[in-house]
């Protein structure tokens, strides 16, 4: 790829760039920087004692585990949904397609209380699941379910344009050369989709790790069992234990930052793959 640099005659670079950096620093970077600086002030021993506390570790395990499980479910389910919505014409397609974004548009607190009411033992859906001996609300399963709800659009929306670009002829060529349906899927379709698929997975995962509103109602919030990390941070704040809240939060922030870098790497990989 050859990049040509050219001089532009357009005005306003210094003004807009200056304002962009100024606003970014003021609203995002400076506030976020307080977190590592404040946790640095705590000293290593306090920091270590806090983040290796069994209750804190249990919350990290739960937040990560449930987010991973939800992202994995969404990766499979989201692929199927994106495939069906892109490749087939169905009645009510537009409505269904618009509905995919509902978890984006619906405020998280509303999603939280609604899912809890639906999946509580006496709720519309929880009642039937209880008959099968499945308890969703107030268990790690409920947390995962809320995160599946929140994360679904990320996978579907990342995959849809890529599936749309995938030429039907390539698949037809593969099957006319004697490939079975599974071979076409495994050798042709999935490798082509994989960068976008991974990006969608990572986006859903990143969102789920820090998610609060949709989870907190259905979680039950029992220490060691169903207490997610964001809730634990709030609990510390309510007890005015800012030091512990800061230490717990900085680990979560670091993880989010690493995920963001990973996603950007994946996206540029996907971009390169598609442009060649």
């Amino acid at each position, binding site marked *: 790829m050859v990049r040509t640099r050219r001089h532009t005659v357009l005005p306003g670079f210094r003004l807009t760039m200056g304002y962009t950096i100024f606003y970014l620093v003021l609203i995002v970077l400076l506030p976020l920087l307080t977190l590592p600086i404040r946790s640095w002030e705590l000293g290593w021993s306090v920091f270590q004692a806090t983040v290796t506390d069994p209750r804190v570790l249990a919350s990290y395990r739960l937040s990560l585990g449930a987010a991973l499980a939800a992202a994995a479910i969404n990766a499979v389910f989201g692929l199927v949904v994106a495939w069906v919505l892109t490749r087939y014409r169905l009645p009510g397609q537009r409505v269904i397609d618009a509905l995919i974004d509902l978890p984006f548009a619906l405020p998280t607190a509303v999603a939280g209380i609604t899912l809890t009411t639906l999946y509580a033992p006496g709720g519309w859906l929880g009642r039937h699941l209880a008959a099968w001996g499945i308890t969703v609300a107030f268990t790690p399963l409920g947390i995962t379910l809320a995160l599946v709800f929140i994360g*679904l659009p990320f996978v579907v929306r990342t995959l849809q344009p890529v599936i749309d670009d995938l030429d039907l002829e390539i698949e037809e060529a593969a099957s006319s050369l004697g490939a079975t349906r599974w071979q076409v899927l495994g050798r042709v379709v999935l490798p082509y989709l994989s960068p976008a698929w991974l990006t969608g997975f990572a986006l859903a995962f990143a969102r789920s790790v820090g998610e609060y509103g949709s989870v907190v109602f259905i979680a039950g919030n029992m220490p060691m069992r169903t207490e997610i990390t964001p809730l634990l941070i709030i609990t510390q704040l309510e007890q005015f234990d800012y030091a512990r809240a800061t230490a717990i939060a900085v680990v979560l922030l670091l993880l989010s930052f690493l995920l963001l870098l990973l996603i950007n790497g994946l996206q540029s990989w996907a971009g390169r793959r598609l442009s060649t």
Partner: protein
Amino acid sequence: MALAFLVLFLFVPLLAVFTEALRFGLGAYAAAILQPDALSALRLTLLAAAVAVPLNLVFGVSAGWAIAKFDFRGKNILLTLIDLPFAVSPVIAGLVFILLFGRQGWLGPWLTDHDIRVVFALPGIVLATVFVSFPFVAREIIPVMQAMGREEEEAARVLGASGLQIFRRVTLPNIKWGLLYGVLLCNARAMGEFGAVSVVSGKIRGETNTLPLHVEILYNEYQFQAAFAAASLLAGLAIVTLVLKVVIERRLQRAMAVPGDPL
């Protein structure tokens, strides 16, 4: 089969909000929405969005101009930093403002001396809302501006138009649907934000309670019908957002397809 499950998974919750809200009829529904605490929560939510959306709109346009119309080093780093609020947990977004402006925060003593309240007051709520809805306009506008290229603006410049004239007459008509799309998403997030606002609000009824927080308080007090009535307003906002999104997307696709289209 997959779609049946999808409809169940996405549509049933939406249906449930309105069913629960109307459980005791329209009278109870109206009473829940018209109680003073609900109305003041609604006012605060609208106010926070009314501050956050224009601020982030100006930023988005400014960032879009700088990033799409010029070449410079570190563009990718800048784009990653703009995405940062997406990646950060909303609870952390609230926490950082407590660490800055709270009583034990860096600026806390100074603020107390000057009798200014940021945390557990309106400014904190607005700040947290601005933070979480920060990337939306910029994220939508940058790709649109990049796709439009620079030739039209450059031509206008060569013909003697000033910067402001170029923006108003050339750029704005090209990007208006993208801009509107960004504003729509930004507004949905600003009005619906829960985690970040929950941390900085202090949840003083009638004073620092936004609509999502009002929903939480009612729910935790087992006033389920009233909670869902308030929630139905937010669900209504979500539906309006989705409908407008479809409309704007169609316009956007048309606008993006026009330049260079032989037909």
